[in-house]
């Protein structure tokens, strides 16, 4: 474990340096025009710059995915994992909205402040309990239980319960809960997130810039700017007419009708970043280290116009930006690119991250070498299990390494299984050579020290499987005996064994010369 931890920290240091020397441009991508505005808006002669959508990797080393940041981040208020969607503690006016797992009901409290005509104000604390069957001011089993819910606790207050396979819409003011139709058991829709679709927001920045208007100057020299087109970008101020985005476990993004609580078509999908080893065409939320999706509507009609989505690859080295129209058709997409060091061609950023910047190849080799000090069996297991890990957890993995070169190779969608396996063994080459050499050393030492054949075999097998870790364990736990030269065969032998483990001879201690006579008890002599 100490070895794994030390290798992890060293590898993290290499990766941090790689992230630090990565050119900023390699982690940035933009599309101009965005393609979401009508042509007449985009091509308005008063426009100086067209609309732009852009995305930027803030932290390629993915420090928010590290254990402590991830642990604390999942437990702050308004975090999905902690099921507290709102929390405020200003003394008497405390308010909250959270799911109580023990009762399976949502617990809600706020303080209503009403201003009276005479200038005074009255305060009334409202406490509500919400279940699938209704809302009440007192806890009531008849309200039912939510079991496994995902939620969008923005203004719309939408929920989806995986076990009940229904959507719910909660109206706190009216104290009502509306049930949607139940999805069939074999329904293709498997909602994973509703409303604000984002993961690891601190790693990825996504923005939408409206068109910039030209300035004009009157005869007196006063500068003025014509009013911008009435465009409201999405996200925190998004007020949809009636649709909200739902992210599916497959990576597809659907539209949900907030009135009927039924699906109303496809909005798009999470774009797949291009990694060092070719990845799948379609990615799921678990395959991505970070993603953000912003739906866009115009202020004048709040009509849904489409969405922009950005996704960061598992390793944090590549970013893809995509724009979808209102029908879910891809309008445009772009990958982060960098310049190759030799001929300055455009190559994917996942490649320039490791080889582009000065000193990057050195750090990459360092990272590769450190990964090869890892136990070979765990490296091989990383190869086979690389796709099963959720992307963020790979950044805090100690034993299985889904973000290692071998792990990346395991996810390569281009090659056949045999080709992948062969290239994995090539990548593990130094590790295998090291394991074989250490295995030879362990075998030799175990024979010298007189371990039994069975024990020697197990240690050698263990060293092949676990490499340096097994060798260190062997050195720390091997019997610490000073060997003595056997008078018969001349090889070192263990003094705590009755016979020489090489020639099976009994003991003879030539350095001691006791006298030939003995004066022993007559009983002993007999």
């Amino acid at each position: 474990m100490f070895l794994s931890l030390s290798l992890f920290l060293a590898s993290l240091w290499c990766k941090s340096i790689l992230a630090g020397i990565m050119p900023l441009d390699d982690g940035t991508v933009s599309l101009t025009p965005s393609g979401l505005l009508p042509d007449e808006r985009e091509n308005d002669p008063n426009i100086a710059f067209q609309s732009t959508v852009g995305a930027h990797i803030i932290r390629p080393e993915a420090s928010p995915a590290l254990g402590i940041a991830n642990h604390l981040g999942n437990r702050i208020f308004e975090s999905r994992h902690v099921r507290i969607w709102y929390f405020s503690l200003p003394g008497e006016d405390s308010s909250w909205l959270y799911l109580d797992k023990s009762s399976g009901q949502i617990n809600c409290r706020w303080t209503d402040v009403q201003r009276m005509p005479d200038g005074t104000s009255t305060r009334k604390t409202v406490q509500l309990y919400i279940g699938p069957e209704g809302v009440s001011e007192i806890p009531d089993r008849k309200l039912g239980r939510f079991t496994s819910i995902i939620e969008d606790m923005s203004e719309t207050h939408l929920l989806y319960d995986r076990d009940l396979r229904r959507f719910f819409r909660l109206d706190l003011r009216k104290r009502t809960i509306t049930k949607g139709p139940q999805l069939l058991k074999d329904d293709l829709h498997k909602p994973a997130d509703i409303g604000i679709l984002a993961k690891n927001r601190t790693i990825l920045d996504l923005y939408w810039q409206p068109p910039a208007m030209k300035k004009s100057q009157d005869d007196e020299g006063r500068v003025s700017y014509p009013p911008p087109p009435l465009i409201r970008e999405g996200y925190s101020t998004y007020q949809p007419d009636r649709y909200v985005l739902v992210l599916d476990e497959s990576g597809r993004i659907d539209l949900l009708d907030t009135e009927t609580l039924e699906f109303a078509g496809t909005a798009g999908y999470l774009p797949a970043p291009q990694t060092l080893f070719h990845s799948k065409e379609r990615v799921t939320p678990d395959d991505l280290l970070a993603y953000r999706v912003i739906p866009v509507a115009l202020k004048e009609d709040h009509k849904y116009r489409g969405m922009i989505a950005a996704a960061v690859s598992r390793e944090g080295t590549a970013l893809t930006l995509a724009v979808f129209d209102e029908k879910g058709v891809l309008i445009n997409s772009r990958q982060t690119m960098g310049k190759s060091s030799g001929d300055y061609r455009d190559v994917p950023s996942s490649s320039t991250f490791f080889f582009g910047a000065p000193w990057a190849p050195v750090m990459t080799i360092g990272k590769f070498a450190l990964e090869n000090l890892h136990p070979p069996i765990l490296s091989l297991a990383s190869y086979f299990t690389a796709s099963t890990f959720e992307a963020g957890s790979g950044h805090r993995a100690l034993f299985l390494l889904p973000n290692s070169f071998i792990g990346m190779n395991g996810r390569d969608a281009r090659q056949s299984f045999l080709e992948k396996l062969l290239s994995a063994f090539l990548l593990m080459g130094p590790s295998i050579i090291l394991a074989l050499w250490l295995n030879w050393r362990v075998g030799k030492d175990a024979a010298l020290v007189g371990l039994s054949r069975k024990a020697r075999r197990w240690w050698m097998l263990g060293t092949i499987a676990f490499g340096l870790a097994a060798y260190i364990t062997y050195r720390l736990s091997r019997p610490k005996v000073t060997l003595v030269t056997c008078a018969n065969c001349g090889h070192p032998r263990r003094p705590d064994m009755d016979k020489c483990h090489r020639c099976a001879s009994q003991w003879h201690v030539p350095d001691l010369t006791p006298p030939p006579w003995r004066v022993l008890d007559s009983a002993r002599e007999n």
Partner: protein
Amino acid sequence: MLALIKREIQDHLVYFIAALASSAALIALLSTAAFHFERPGGDLFIGLTIPLIVILVIVFSAMGVTQMYLDRNRRISAFLSTLPVTRSRILTAKIITGVLAILIVLLPVTIAAVALRHLLLPSIPVFANLITGFVTTTFLMLFACYCLGLLTGWTASKITPTFGALGLNLILFSLIIVKGFGPEIRLLLVLVIAACLIRTWHKFTSTSL
């Protein structure tokens, strides 16, 4: 056994005093942070608990090292072994003493945290889980560092227990940054503790005194 534990406590009283002082300091920091959290600089008090915990890690590791180092070099166990006491009991008494010292730090802090939670926060389940998780992980971390101290302390050299233990403890402490405070780190720490204690027990019971 009580006599052995009493002997250990008396011999290492300074660590118990340090534990009490740390406990008091932590409670003071937590209380100040809780009552001043919304004021500017209020979260500084929370930040100050981190170096204090690092110091505690070093202190408990040093306690483990000191227990074993002094025992070996003053031949205390050699003397005790001539009395009706087994080596396992001697080691168990040391470990119980270490656990007591850690509990002296953590128990009052836990009680204070729970009390502050009841006073200042509504009874939302996540707060209880947060405190339990943090306290359990901290206990296991401190105990693991203490066990590392026990393992590295049985030597005549001064360098190995000083720098070896310090290095290993810092690596172990970084596990919190890598894994957080969740069940994974607890499992890993339990494994580290088990490995250290088994190795220490084997070393202590088979070595010549």
